[in-house]
């Protein structure tokens, strides 16, 4: 029971402002409320009071400045013909030339299409899996059994992609267990790890194995937040198990599902770097090249810095636009999204 209680707390929070950026709006609200009651003390007094807080924040801000904000500023080399020997200051400016090349580059479009194809496929064949799994887990009533199953299915989330791909290779590769069994029975071996035609299935399978269990957490919290009296009332009125699932459970999950769909949309150009990096050689570029691996292979290894920076900048800006659009859609649906309307 205590464990249940805690989950309910979590779920209670779900209906309240969600995610990161809302926090700032919250903070602002709180400070505005505080400001309404009393006048703000002068800056000097506040500084005398708050300097330890600033000092504490400094290391994190410093690291972000160096490894996040400096690279963002460094993206200007996308508009240059950058050479490391002469540096950013001396490298010639070339305007949009790199972007023009990018538009004409077939392999860039191939990588983009692959990325979008994978996102779309996984939207249909990965996204619902944690929801279904959560409903299944939620129906396990014995607490110890449920805890055990939860612990097991969360675990692969903490394995590295190298490890996951390795395990899949040992199962489905040319020398893997499935091939072994097939050969023992006189059939031909089967190698899913190098087959471009089944690559979509393979990466989706890997993603399900690694992350579907972990993905249930949020849905389990949402399920725990559904008022149990609704189920009782419906049951007393004669609603069957499936009717209750359809009319109570699924509507209860709706806000979370919409939130996660939106987050996914904003993240459409990110399909995970390592998973594809690791399998690109075995499966071939045609199926496994995604935007991130494109930047790595096409530009980092050839030293075409400006070209790679241009590709990265396009991806970043498109990602930003997608997040903004996704939030607009969320607000249209009457949901929070990842940041509030301001």
């Amino acid at each position, binding site marked *: 029971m205590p464990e249940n209680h805690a*989950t309910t707390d*979590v779920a209670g929070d779900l209906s309240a402002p969600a995610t990161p950026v809302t926090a700032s709006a919250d903070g602002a609200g709180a400070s505005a409320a505080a400001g309404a009651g009393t006048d703000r003390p002068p800056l000097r007094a506040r500084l005398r009071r708050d300097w330890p807080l600033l000092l*504490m924040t400094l290391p994190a801000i410093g690291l972000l400045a160096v490894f996040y904000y400096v*690279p963002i500023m460094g993206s200007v080399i996308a508009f240059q013909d950058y050479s490391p020997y002469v540096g950013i200051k001396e490298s010639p400016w070339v305007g949009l030339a790199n972007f023009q090349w990018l538009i004409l580059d077939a392999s860039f479009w191939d990588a983009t299409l692959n990325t979008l194809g994978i996102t779309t496929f996984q939207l249909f064949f990965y996204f619902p899996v944690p929801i279904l799994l959560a409903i299944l887990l939620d129906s396990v*009533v014995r607490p110890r059994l449920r805890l055990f199953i939860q612990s097991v299915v969360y675990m692969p989330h903490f394995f590295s992609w190298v490890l996951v791909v390795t395990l899949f290779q040992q199962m489905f590769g040319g020398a893997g267990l499935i091939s072994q069994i097939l050969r023992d029975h006189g059939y031909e071996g089967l190698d899913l790890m190098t087959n471009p035609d089944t690559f979509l299935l393979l990466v989706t399978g890997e993603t399900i194995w690694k992350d579907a269990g972990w993905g249930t*957490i949020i849905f389990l919290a949402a399920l725990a937040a559904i008022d149990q009296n609704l189920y009782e009332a419906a049951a007393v009125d004669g609603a069957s198990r499936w009717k209750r699932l359809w009319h109570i459970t699924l509507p209860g999950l709706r806000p979370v599902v919409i939130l996660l769909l939106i987050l996914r949309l904003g993240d459409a150009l990110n399909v995970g770097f390592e998973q594809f990096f690791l399998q690109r050689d075995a499966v071939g570029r045609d199926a496994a090249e995604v935007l991130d691996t494109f*930047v790595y292979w096409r530009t980092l290894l050839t030293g075409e810095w400006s070209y790679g920076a241009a590709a990265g900048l396009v991806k970043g800006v498109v990602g930003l636009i997608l997040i903004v659009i996704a939030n607009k859609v969320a607000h249209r649906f009457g949901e929070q999204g990842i940041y509030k309307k301001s």
Partner: protein
Amino acid sequence: MTALPSWAERPSPAGRTAKGLLLTLIVVSVLFPIYMVVLTSLSPQEAVTKAGGLVTVPDGLSFGAYRELFAGGVATRSVLVSLGVTAVGTTISLTVTVLAAYGLSRPGSVLHRTLLFTVLLTFLFVPGLIPSYLVVSSLGLLDSYWALILPSAVWAFNLVVMRAFFMNIPKEVTDSARIDGASEFRILWRIVLPMSKGVTAVIGLFYAVGYWNAFFNAVLYLNDNAKWPLQLVLRQYVLQGQSLITGQASVSSIPGQALPPSLAIQMSIVVVALVPVLFIYPFVQKHFTKGVIIGAVKG
């Protein structure tokens, strides 16, 4: 809540069986590959040859693969590298994150909104690979272990989760300490952190697992394969089936190319990559099911 509520109908026997089978299948699909890998790594060479691949039924016990793996050379070194990077990295990340989370937990403090926005912006825009690489390279961090730690030392997500947790601590608790003259550092260390053990453990695990599993930073920033962490050696040995040249160990006809490692050795590296996660996990996972990670749910 051990039993079904009284209003719920008993599930049909067929339904119960189907559910049981499905759950068993799910649990087995996670555990079986792990079992098989561990078993193969512990099997003598004859057993692996007889099985024609991975061993599924125990057949003898041998620590030969591990002895060979830890005999020195690249694989041994990579384990030490990964352990070191994980220990140092987690310490730095956790310290920086806890400090910043506390520093940002008081709305209305000086520069609060600006600094928070500086952190939150990292969710919205991702800088490209190339500019990041150029920054690390111009700092002279290529081929340095710091390149595996510093660029990803702060995860804004973890910071926000931690901050949300700190903000939920009743204000009266910290305010009364402040009135008693405790410094902010003392309040954090003596009051806030002891109240946040669960979330600190979880965030610590996130960081530790992140460092242990880190792969891409090493691919990008380490050219010298003598410095490789475990995950890169794992890829080399197992996914690409190549040994690394380890000084006198290479006995091969092709100069510069060692013999492919045996399956047992390959699997023993997999196990070494797996074991720390399996060991820490039980201590921290209770916090997941207790729902400590509000932030994860929120985010």
